């Protein structure tokens, strides 16, 4: 119970990452204000990977004072997030290479702090830690979004993000305050034990606080109608930050949604479960429809990815809404998250490469990419096909598993909505593919040389996307049988 005699070794990865982040920050200090510092990027990647390895080594079960949990769930999500951040940093290295006005050391440090926040979030079993983790992630993200401070779009995006993010935090907190007030505890596990009886006593307030928290979390994972910020911020942010937001923020958000809803709000014998699954189902439906429909109209690749990310969040909500066996839904989400991380980051690596090369964010910068860099064009196509959920990519398997899980729960209509909207998404994903393969390159665009970091990221993402698409058993056999 007490934090004094807890097994602090459970926190090793977090501690290591924190220290490394500070070390990197210090090194940055000591090497001057400006200038290119690619070694910092490499160090950050190593730090993240080391942490990921530590997380893996440190797996197992244990808690620190009921506020910090290490279990399969958190281990898995942490690894996903750390790898995700590592990839984002690899992408950033190219971006920072191209953009001299961005402070490098601070950029990497903030990324690492954000990663730390995400880790804290994922592991937390207490509303306070959860909130701190969330804010650590959010505040770092706000800064990162506005990091290109001479860019009007970047700062505009950042201010929108701060204001709306702050409001969302207020909503989460307001919801939490009632949970705390009515139970006297902030521990998720303790709350979960009394929530059922609490619900009997104060149904209105309990549901209201669930909804308030859902609104706040929904903001993080950008689901309709809490998604409004996403396109603007995605468009304004430096591209690697966009990647970061669309992957790390979102997946971390999903992790806490799962943690909170599946631990706390399930209620004993699932009493409470009926109260929110259908809401989630409706939100998922609206999210998929709105996200995909708006994406149809986009001409800016980053905005497109934002709306596509909204739609993807909708897909990820489906297993939450369609609970057959909770741990099964978690498996589904984890698999899809893994897949989503690699596909999205692979895509963003190429988007960074291309948009930084052309200086434009619109579709036409992809025009004739196949002629400029066949490998990148093919890889991009694979990622987009994966996001669209077409076969031989991991996205196909991931989506299929979501469908099947929805079917198992008897929510065929939800699977139907998801499928139909996926087909709609073909239109815009293939729109990009069309740009790359069927249009001629812009006259002044020459052959595109990819730097090592981008190539490596793309290759890894490509390999994962295809391998998990063909032999998903490598991952699924393992995920499907873990009792989360």
């Amino acid at each position, binding site marked *: 119970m007490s934090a004094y005699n807890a097994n602090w070794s459970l926190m090793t990865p977090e501690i290591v990452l924190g220290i490394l982040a500070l070390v990197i920050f210090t090194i940055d200090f000591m090497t001057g204000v400006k200038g290119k510092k690619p070694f910092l990027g490499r160090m950050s990647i190593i730090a993240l990977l080391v942490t990921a390895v530590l997380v893996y080594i440190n797996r197992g079960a244990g808690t620190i004072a009921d506020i910090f949990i290490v279990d399969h769930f958190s281990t898995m999500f942490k690894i996903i997030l750390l790898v995700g951040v590592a990839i984002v940093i690899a992408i950033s290295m190219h971006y920072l290479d191209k953009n001299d006005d961005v402070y490098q050391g601070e950029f990497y440090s903030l990324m690492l702090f954000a990663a730390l926040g995400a880790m804290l979030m994922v592991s937390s079993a207490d509303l306070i830690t959860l909130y701190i983790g969330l804010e650590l992630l959010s505040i770092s993200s706000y800064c990162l979004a506005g990091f290109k401070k001479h860019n009007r779009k970047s700062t505009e995006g950042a201010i929108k993000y701060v204001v709306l993010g702050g409001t969302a935090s207020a909503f989460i907190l307001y919801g939490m305050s009632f949970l705390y007030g009515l139970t006297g505890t902030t521990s998720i596990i303790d709350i979960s034990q009394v929530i059922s009886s609490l619900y009997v006593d104060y149904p209105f307030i309990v549901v209201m606080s669930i909804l308030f928290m859902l609104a706040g979390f929904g*903001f993080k994972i950008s689901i309709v109608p809490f998604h409004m910020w996403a396109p603007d911020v995605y468009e304004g942010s430096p591209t690697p930050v966009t990647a970061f937001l669309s992957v790390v923020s979102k997946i971390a958000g999903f992790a806490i949604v799962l943690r909170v809803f599946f631990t706390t709000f399930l209620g004993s014998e699932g009493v409470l479960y009926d109260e929110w699954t259908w809401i989630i189902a409706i939100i998922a439906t609206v999210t998929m429809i709105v996200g995909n429909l708006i994406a149809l*109209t986009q001409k800016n690749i980053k905005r497109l990815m934002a709306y596509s990310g909204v739609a993807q969040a909708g897909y990820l909500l489906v297993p939450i809404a369609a609970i057959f066996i909770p741990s099964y839904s978690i498996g589904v989400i984890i698999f899809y998250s893994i897949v989503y991380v690699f596909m999205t980051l692979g895509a963003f690596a190429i988007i960074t490469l291309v948009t930084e090369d052309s200086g434009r964010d619109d579709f036409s910068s992809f025009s004739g990419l196949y002629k400029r860099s066949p490998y990148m064009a093919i890889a991009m196509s694979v990622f987009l096909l994966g996001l669209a959920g077409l076969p031989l990519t991991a996205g196909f398997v991931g989506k299929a598993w979501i469908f099947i899980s929805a079917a198992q729960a008897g929510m065929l209509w939800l699977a139907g909505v998801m499928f139909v909207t996926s087909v709609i998404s073909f239109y815009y994903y293939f729109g990009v593919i069309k740009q790359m393969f069927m249009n001629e390159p812009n006259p002044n665009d020459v052959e595109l040389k990819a730097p090592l970091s981008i190539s490596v990221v793309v290759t890894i993402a490509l390999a994962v996307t295809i391998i998990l698409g063909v032999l998903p058993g490598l991952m699924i056999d393992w995920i499907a049988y873990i009792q989360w």
Partner: protein
Amino acid sequence: MIQNAWLIPVFPLIAFIILLFFGRFLKEKASYVGITALALSFILSVIVLIERIGGETYSFVIEWLTFGESTITMGYEVTPLNAMMLIVVTVVSLLVHVFSKEYMREDARIHVFYSYLGLFSFSMLGLVLAPNILQLFIFWELVGLCSFLLVGFWYFKPEAAAAAKKAFLTTRIGDVGLLIGLVLLFNATGSFDYADIFAAVQAGLVNDTMITIIAICIFLGAVGKSAQFPLHVWLPDAMEGPTPVSALIHAATMVAAGVYLVGVMYPLFLASSTAMTVVAYTGAITAIFAATIALVNTDIKRILAYSTISQLGFMMLALGTGGYVAGLFHLMTHAFFKALLFLGAGSVIYAVHHRQDIREMGGLWKRMKLTSITFLIGALAIAGIFPLAGFWSKEGVLAAAWEGGDIFLFTIAVITAFMTAFYMFRLFFTAFTGTFRGDHEPHENTKLMTIPLAVLAFLAIVAGFVNTPLGFVLEDFLTQGLNVGYQAHGELWLAILSLAVAIGGIALAWAMYYKGAIAKDAFSSKLPAVHKLLLNKYYMDELYAKVFVQPTVAIGKFLWDIDRNIVDGIVNLVGRSSKITGRTFAKRHDGQLQTYGLVTIIGGLAIIALAFVLRGYFG
């Protein structure tokens, strides 16, 4: 040899294949390939016929198609009827092959022509040898194809192309009827084999209504192929093909296939009096209908074409009134003399440099002796002058019509016989007598063309003797082992009537077109409306165009509009509307931070409201 009867169609097939692949290199020599093949077929046919007369019989089948528990077989068998038909087909075909060598000499695509002829001969012989109605149908369609190809042989002439299409399409209408008929027959009897079918019909396994429907459907096929009213419109147009083709396909063999079909399926027709009546009336109407048009037409080939239609109607009439042998007998004799007339016409046309209007001919008698004589023989034969072949067979038809008991049919038959004699001699007198009215002086053609004429003339004279009151050889042969009912034989008064009618017709033609005793426009000036009607072939083509073709195309156009604008329009609309919806949603992203907040709040409120209203937390 009879077991090798399958070789009879195979020889022309081999010729076809050779010409298909090597025709280009053979050019004019292609004709030898064709002629050799047909000669072989002919010899074999003769042997087969002799053996068949000797009583030998043979049939052979292999499994062709299996489905469920049913099996369809293919093979060949020799029956009296098809033994006779083999001879008719091979003889005419052989002669046409020979004739064409000269006639088509100048055509660069003569090898193609011969290859088509080979394919046709193969198909026609295959049709004849078929032991079941499906196989018959298969070859039936193939002869249709050949007809299409040959009518459209001069494809660069738009009329020829149109005629070819028309020929195929019109017969196709009948063929669909036939197909449906034989499918029904199969479903009713479980087999396509003639023997099985007849056994099933005899055993009463098929109910009467069904038999009638099937018989009429099958007859529909015959109507199309044999150019019976109302599907006769294609045959006159088919004269756009080379004349030897007209002789072979559109006079002697293919068009007779319809009659042959009814003959082959005769027991089925006999089982349904309704079907018999339909056949008889269709035949009668066709006979007189076509004859009336032939009265006024001036195109030598078209006159013969209408004559053919009319004669085919005659055959149908005979079959429909129970004259099984009479119909088939007339088929045989008609094949010879009509082929003769067509080849004669071909010879004339060739000589006058491809003019076909009889008003531009005249006086050919002096210039083309042999052709004229043989043509005259043919004309006499078709008119039914004793003792030529036409006399005997036509008398049989009249006898059947009389015996059938329907005086109306008989009257029509007699009137048609009169008209036949009249228009044939109108043609003869106009084209062969008087003065030449063309611009190129015609000459007699080479032996290659005249010898076939002579042979056919000989056949036109003698072919009738196989079935005379002195000995009904053909009848005995054809009815062997078949139950086709009582066969009527004409009495003497009928023969005299027939002869009288024929002579009357000739006399009238003589008076009008040779002697000039009666003005040529004696009738047409009195009945201009009728004349015009006849000249325009009763406006059948126009009627069909108005009633079938144009509406179909109009419906097609209408549906095409619907398809593009409505069916596809809805699809596009769905696509467009999702984009529009998307844009509407996207408009909420107006860049205003506070709009975002508001949308979020309102969305959240909507969820809360929904949750609370649906779940009933109020009160």
